[in-house]
């Protein structure tokens, strides 16, 4: 992939599950060669959790895994075997970057922590991303994404003031952490070009979550205020809500931030008498009477589809948007224009969607060309072409079970 930003850059990707693999994926979008190391004996959670193609289980049928490993090469290797560790060290020798998102201590157990890798290759750039970071009293907390959104304070801020808090199905902090890491990682790569020196980056995903709540944190630090759930309300703006539209479970979001937008809104809905009520003519009045106001607005929105309501209001300069469902994202004209979803043929899943970066580079666009690998799909290429092992050496590793195969998948996972 010459001509791309990261052409020639090599990554040994030992990370797994959600947050970690997205980091090297970004580099792979722009031309880096990324080798993802996995093992059939303990397939990662995303391979066993699904969603699976047609709902049929199988470690190579999960779009969860595919999503974060597109454009990468995939190999199978048992790091619990000493020969597996030797091969892994060859990959470290080959790589510019080592990627780790294992529980604290796992990489050290295999002799693959930063200090060990530095001895193999002093200029290596090595990052670890875990829920709590490498140190501190909670560093051994289990690495599931719900930990991040619970400990960072997100769930407490999700829902309604009169109800219990709600979970964040999307484990949000897993999806902001990678981008913090990438910015620092690219800076570390440039430092290495200039100084020849490698370095270590130790990320706490919970700290990333806290950083994205910074205004509320400062509000507590300075004003002692503990942020609470507000449903769809906003402390400063009214109307500010989500209103019913025609169709099943269809909604439109509307936020009117000043008098001009309010006047425009009133024109769109035909200036009915209630809009002339002086209680609604100022922001303070609207905020003070928002229950009634929002009920009135809902009476108007329910006559239209969410798309119609959004279009009418946006054409008049009023902030409004459909509550997009997953299905709607695939039909969204703006996301289509941006080519957000790209379709590639995966060996077992068939043609399916991959997401592209949120930014477009005018001169060096991303290139999404290789569907995510099945477990061990690129063994042949990586072991022979990249690491230079002979046919006999690879055969021996297979026989010894160092390179794992489908027969090594635990029975409990095969049977499903």
């Amino acid at each position, binding site marked *: 992939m010459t001509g791309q930003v990261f052409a020639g850059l090599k990554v040994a990707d030992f990370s797994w599950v959600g947050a970690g693999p997205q980091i090297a994926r970004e580099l792979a979008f722009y031309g880096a060669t990324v080798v993802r190391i996995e093992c059939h004996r303990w397939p990662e959670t995303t391979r066993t959790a699904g969603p699976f193609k047609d709902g049929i289980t199988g470690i190579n049928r999960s779009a969860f895994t595919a999503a974060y490993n597109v454009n990468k090469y995939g190999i199978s290797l048992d790091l619990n075997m000493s020969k597996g560790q030797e091969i892994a060290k060859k990959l470290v020798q080959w790589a510019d970057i080592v990627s780790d998102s294992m529980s604290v201590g796992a990489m050290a157990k295999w002799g693959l922590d930063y200090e060990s890798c530095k001895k193999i290759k002093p200029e290596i750039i090595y990052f670890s991303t875990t829920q709590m970071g*490498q140190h501190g009293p909670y560093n051994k907390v289990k690495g599931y994404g719900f930990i991040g959104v619970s400990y960072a304070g997100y769930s*407490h801020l999700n829902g309604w003031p009169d109800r219990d808090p*709600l979970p964040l199905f999307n484990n949000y902090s897993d999806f902001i952490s990678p981008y*913090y890491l990438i910015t620092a990682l*690219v800076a570390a790569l440039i430092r290495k070009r200039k100084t020849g020196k490698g370095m*270590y980056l130790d990320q706490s995903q919970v700290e990333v979550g806290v950083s994205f709540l910074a205004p509320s944190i400062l509000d507590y630090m300075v004003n002692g205020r503990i942020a609470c759930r507000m449903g769809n309300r906003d402390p400063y703006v009214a109307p500010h809500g989500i209103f019913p539209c025609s169709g099943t479970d269809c909604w439109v979001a509307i936020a009117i931030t000043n008098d001009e937008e309010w006047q425009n809104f009133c024109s769109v809905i035909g200036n009915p008498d209630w809009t002339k009520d002086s209680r609604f003519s100022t922001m303070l009045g609207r905020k003070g009477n928002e229950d009634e106001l929002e009920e009135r607005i809902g009476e108007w929105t329910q006559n239209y589809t969410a798309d119609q309501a959004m279009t009418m209001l*946006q054409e008049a300069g009023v902030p409004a948007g459909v509550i997009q469902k997953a299905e709607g994202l695939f039909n969204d004209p703006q996301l289509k224009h941006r080519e957000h979803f790209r379709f590639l043929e995966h060996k077992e899943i068939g043609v399916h969607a991959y997401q592209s*970066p949120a*930014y477009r580079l005018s001169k060096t666009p991303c290139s999404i060309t290789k569907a995510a690998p099945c477990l061990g799909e690129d063994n042949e290429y990586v072991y022979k072409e990249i690491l230079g092992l002979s046919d006999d050496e690879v055969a021996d590793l297979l026989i010894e079970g160092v390179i794992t195969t489908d027969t090594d998948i635990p029975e409990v996972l095969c049977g499903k």
Partner: protein
Amino acid sequence: MAEEKNSLLAGYRVLDLTDEKGQLCGKLLGDLGADVIKIEPPRGDPARNTGPFYKDIPHPEKSLFWFYTNLHKRSITLNLETSDGKGIFQRLVKSADFVVESFEPGYMESFGLGYAELEKINPRIIVTSITPFGQTGPYAHYKTTDIVGVAMGGMVYIYGEMDRPPNRLSCPQFYFLGGLHGATGSMVAHYHRELTGEGQQVDVSCQQAVVLSLMIVAEIWDMLKYSYRGMGPFYAGARPGGSPLFSQVIYPCKDGHVFLLVTGASQAGMVSSSRALVEMANREGMALELKDYPWQTIDAATISQEELTRLTDAIAGFIKTKTKAELSSVALEKGILLAPLTTVKDVVESPQFTARGFWQEVEHPELGATITYPGYPIKMNEAPYRVQRRAPLIGEHNEEIYEKELGFSKEQLGILKNCGVI
């Protein structure tokens, strides 16, 4: 200044023209040591009016939102719409490395400061444009606020109670996501520039940034044609050929709530988690009916809703009698898949962040106060984190930059001030 030398982006300059839509981008580049110059309209950036405020005093020099998103930056005032203002900006671009802007698409181009023009002045320049939907396309000129943006990116439908409209998170995320992805794209472009000398434009869509944060919501549709919807305190698992399985994950406890997975099946960690939890309850004479429950036999594809609810109800009764701290300390020790739902107060008081040295004390001399900020979530011993300075006052660095750096005389600055340029 040994510390400064170690900063990864020391010596690189960012011209930051953004309002609330893009401010985090420059802040993140400043976190890595870049010299970020915030260019404000003469009366100050309108985002200075964004709450919350210091001591709840609404004032453009007291916005806590602004303090955080403009940490590290210096400020000059400049009216880009005047001919002098435009000329000064072009001079600054000559020696800058990044321009970050979040105007409506076409605004910069409308007075000759679009990427095509800036590239002629400095072919190395990277221009990062952060907007709700990107520079082109059917929604490029749509107006957004946080709730509208996250809704259109799919992040509202996945949260909510079953008997109410879906809801947004009660903490704005839309523009933070845009700023974060803006910083990412800027750095990818920066790497290319360092290798080749070629700059480019980075065109960010906050909407796409939201979609990328949905975990497997799009993938569930792609595989199973099911649009995930928020379902109260439950996860709603799609089951092929059957009704979804509701698993309670949020539980009220004595002083708040916890997240908890009550599960089993094939994954060893889940079986041992459920066993440890039941043991803890049994020791106090609770959930005794689950004493020898065969957690390893649970199959999410076939377990009945009644059976799962029986399990979670028994656990819920025990959880109610304990505090967040009691539950989470046992969870930590025994590997139970439980986490406290923290408030901002809990976060601030947590020993973990303090042990990592996360918090940063920042002096605000004009307020006579030191404020503790969230620091940087990545530790790098070879390039330690450093707060360069607190967020600037309006035009605080006019003299430093216009006089000392660009060589304007006091008389010239007077003229520029008088005609509304600075």
